[in-house]
Every structure is written in structure tokens, then in C-alpha cells.
């Protein structure tokens, strides 16, 4: 076989719809043999926090408030039609009705398929988060240079 197909995704957004896209693309590619890297930065860090749900996670009082407001996968808003939180609930219902995988199922599939997940060092610092605040499947904490190196030779998407 020729060189390994590789897909790297920069998961910048923390919205329900965009994270669904991140994990659908990631798991789809991994299922057909791609090496997949996902670099979670800024809002995307919300998806890989260990403590799902709202909690005061963070370094100081400011970041703790953000930690509370960004409550993880269960409460992520949609980019449009959020309707104070009703939007994601409606979309989840539609997805279940059509037998489409939920965001949580996609994240579990990503772990099962061995997708490489990384956290952005810069964003972590600003939001006062530590590696222990993330799920154990997060392989490493990286900066841009390291991410560019490991995504070299494959396709990179910014979501």
C-alpha cells in the first residue's frame, strides 16, 4: 500500500453541530484506515474535559466562571437555532429518530478507533486547565509547531 492516508482536524469550535462534524469526519476516516489526529483548541477543549457537566474548573476565579459556563458535551449550544438550549435537544431528538449517532456515541467511537487526540497548550494556559482536567484518551499537550509536524503529509481541516 502507498503511504498511510492521514487526516488532521483542528477542533476550534465547541458548538454541538460543529463538534458532531469533527467526530463524524474523524471516525469515518479512521474506520476506513486513515490515521486521524484531532487538535482541540479554545472552545474545542470543552469537548474533551473529564468532568462533563458544569463545574468550576480552572486556575483562577475568571477561568472558573468560564469552566462553569462551558459545561461539556451535554450542554453545548448549536451555532444557530439554539433557542436557549432547546436547539441541541431538538437536534438530538431528530438524530435519534433517524438512527444517526449521537455526539457522545461519536466520541466513544473515536476512542475505540484509536484516534489521536491532542489538547492545545496555549488555550489550556489561558483557560487555566491542566492535562488532568481532560479525558485520559488525550495523548498529549501540543503547540502549533508540533501539530504542524504531525499533520504534515496529510489533509488538515479547521472546524
Amino acid at each position: 500500500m502507498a503511504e498511510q492516508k492521514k487526516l488532521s482536524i483542528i477542533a476550534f469550535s465547541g458548538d454541538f453541530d460543529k463538534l458532531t462534524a469533527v467526530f463524524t469526519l474523524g471516525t469515518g476516516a479512521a474506520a476506513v484506515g486513515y490515521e486521524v489526529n484531532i487538535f482541540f483548541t479554545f472552545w474545542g477543549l470543552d469537548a474533551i474535559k473529564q468532568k462533563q457537566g458544569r463545574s468550576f474548573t480552572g486556575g483562577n476565579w475568571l477561568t472558573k466562571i468560564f469552566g462553569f459556563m462551558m459545561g461539556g458535551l451535554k450542554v453545548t449550544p448549536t451555532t444557530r437555532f439554539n433557542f436557549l438550549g432547546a436547539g441541541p435537544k431538538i437536534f438530538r431528538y431528530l438524530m435519534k429518530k433517524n438512527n444517526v449517532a449521537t455526539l457522545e456515541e461519536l466520541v466513544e467511537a473515536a476512542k475505540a478507533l484509536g484516534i489521536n487526540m491532542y489538547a492545545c497548550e496555549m488555550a489550556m494556559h489561558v483557560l487555566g486547565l491542566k492535562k488532568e482536567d481532560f479525558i485520559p484518551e488525550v495523548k498529549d499537550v501540543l503547540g502549533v509547531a508540533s501539530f504542524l509536524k504531525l499533520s504534515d503529509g496529510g489533509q488538515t481541516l479547521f472546524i
Partner: protein
Amino acid sequence: MTFVKTKIELSKLNEGDILEVLLAEGEPLDNVPRNAKEQGYNVLSVEYVEGTTHRVTIKK
């Protein structure tokens, strides 16, 4: 997504084990057997079940 779930189940099996996948016609029916073959699995059969459901039998 169908093939993602198929792949995950296949990875849990031992060599020689058989997996039956019930799936919908259309894209899953096109994708699953083709991708399974490309990944080196043995597609034993593709049968119509009823309605829009088909069964793909794959051997690891």
C-alpha cells in the same frame, strides 16, 4: 456511521469469527461490503432481509 460501528465490532472479534451486520439499503449497503473488503476482511454474503434492511456477513 454504519461502517464505523461495523469496524469497531470487527476489531473486538478474533480471527475466524463471523459478524452479521443488519443495515439499510443505499449508502450503508454500498459502503460496508466495499470497505470491509478493502480492509482485508472476508465478505461472505450480502442478503436482502425485508423492507429496506439487508444483512452483510463478514468473516475476520
